[in-house]
């Protein structure tokens, strides 16, 4: 198993159940030691990160250190969510990686402007590890001295 930084919780914002399944599988295969929680639209993503509504309980729903964000989401587009995250000072330490099927340059450029790495679906274990590494989070195999 691999730890990265102090991240214990990873939030996946994804509405397509097949993509959720494939991401969970890649995550497991990458042997990342963190829990992967899922919300399925942009509004839920914001209430989760704000800790409002049913997400008020941080024991059950801890603040994630990393968010994998789809772009084409119900209610709020992924970029709206990302722009909102960037404006919240309590979320300064939350890393975001865009995970999308879009190969459009305009999306890539927007993600870069908002400082988020860009992954094209489907994610492979290797892609996940590289993207996380690119955030500057140290990858530490479990059992190594931290």
């Amino acid at each position, binding site marked *: 198993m691999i730890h990265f930084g102090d991240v214990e919780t990873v939030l996946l914002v994804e509405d397509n159940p097949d993509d959720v399944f494939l991401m969970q599988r890649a995550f497991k295969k990458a042997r990342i030691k963190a829990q992967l929680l899922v919300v399925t639209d942009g509004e839920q993503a914001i209430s989760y990160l704000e800790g409002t509504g049913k997400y008020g309980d941080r024991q059950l729903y801890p603040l994630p250190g990393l968010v994998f964000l789809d772009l*084409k989401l119900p209610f709020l587009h992924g970029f709206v969510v990302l722009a909102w995250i960037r404006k919240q000072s309590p979320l300064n330490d939350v890393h975001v990686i865009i995970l999308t*099927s879009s190969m459009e340059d305009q999306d890539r450029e927007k993600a870069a402007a908002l400082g988020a790495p860009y992954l094209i679906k489907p994610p492979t274990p290797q892609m996940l590890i590289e993207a996380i590494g690119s955030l500057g989070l140290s990858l530490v195999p479990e059992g190594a001295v931290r």
Partner: protein
Amino acid sequence: MTDLPGCSIDDALRESELSYRRLFEAAQDGIVILDVGTGRIIDVNPFLIKLLGFPRDEMVGKTIGELSPFKDIESNQAMLERLQEHGYVRYENLPLETIDGRHTAVEFVSNVYQAGDKKVIQCNIRDITERKKAEREVNQELERRVIERTASLRDAINQMEQFSYTVSHDLRAPLRAMQGYSNVLIEDFAAEMSDEARSYLHRIGDNATRLEKMISDILTFTRVSRDSPLLTRVSLLKLVQDVIEHYPGLKSPQAEIEVEVDARHEVLAHESGLMQALSNLLGNAVKFMHPGVIPRIRIRSEVRGVDIRLWVEDNGIGIAPEYQHRLFGMFERVLPDDRYEGTGVGLAITRKVIERMGGQAGMESDGQNGSKFWIQLVRAEIER
């Protein structure tokens, strides 16, 4: 000279003068006759009197510029000098205000000609107000149509962008699920399956991969078609070396590449677009080989007028001339699918990319001795 009865020279002159007079009186253009020495009006025809609204005697004896509707015309002296020099003076569109305040436009042409033993100046003044109005209406109509067409073109572009965005996001999602689950089966359940079942699963996976590649090629093609590339100076030799460097299939012993590109040959191009086009050509050059033959590729540059042409010549299977016109189309595959992999979009992209930079792409082959593909771009100006 024999005088024929009733047809003396005098008679002929009179006859000619009479018919001139009829034309002068009946003309639907204004006509003014000026004295060649002074530029003063000798005669005006009825049409001009009607056009300007001045009585005849208020005009005779004056110069053109002294008539208030023509007050902005060049000085009498200047016009006379120009007439002397060129034999005629012409104003295509002279704005004119008549005595009752109507604004009209006229075409004004003066000619010097011989009348008997002396020279006179004849000015023809044509009312072009109606013509100008018609022209203005045509222009307005054209402008309206341009605006309309531009709007519908913009709509079409927006629709195409939305379409490709949809393709990018939505059409790929179910495909990705198919690929993903067939991978899961292969990776986690292969041991439980018969060889036959596994081979079908591989076929599902291969087809999904192929469809994925086709979708991404269409998206590349539409992207290339709508972007206007920014052109910069690109060294062909450096670019060729870069592409070879990054393409494992182009290195010995898989292929023998001979580069004869002049280091001074630089073109105006969009660098990454040109790199994509060249990679496609080199990729094809090593791909379409007879089995067991080692690709021998020659890349060379040549000057063609203001352009540089880059040739990629191979020892591959070649393409018979009767099929060559299909090569650069979308999804055109001249060869049966099972022999050579590909979606049939590569050359369409290549040509489109090069055309968007103002260049051309083409090929030559006799169908037996390999193919010679080329791309041609404007040469960058030589720095001194």
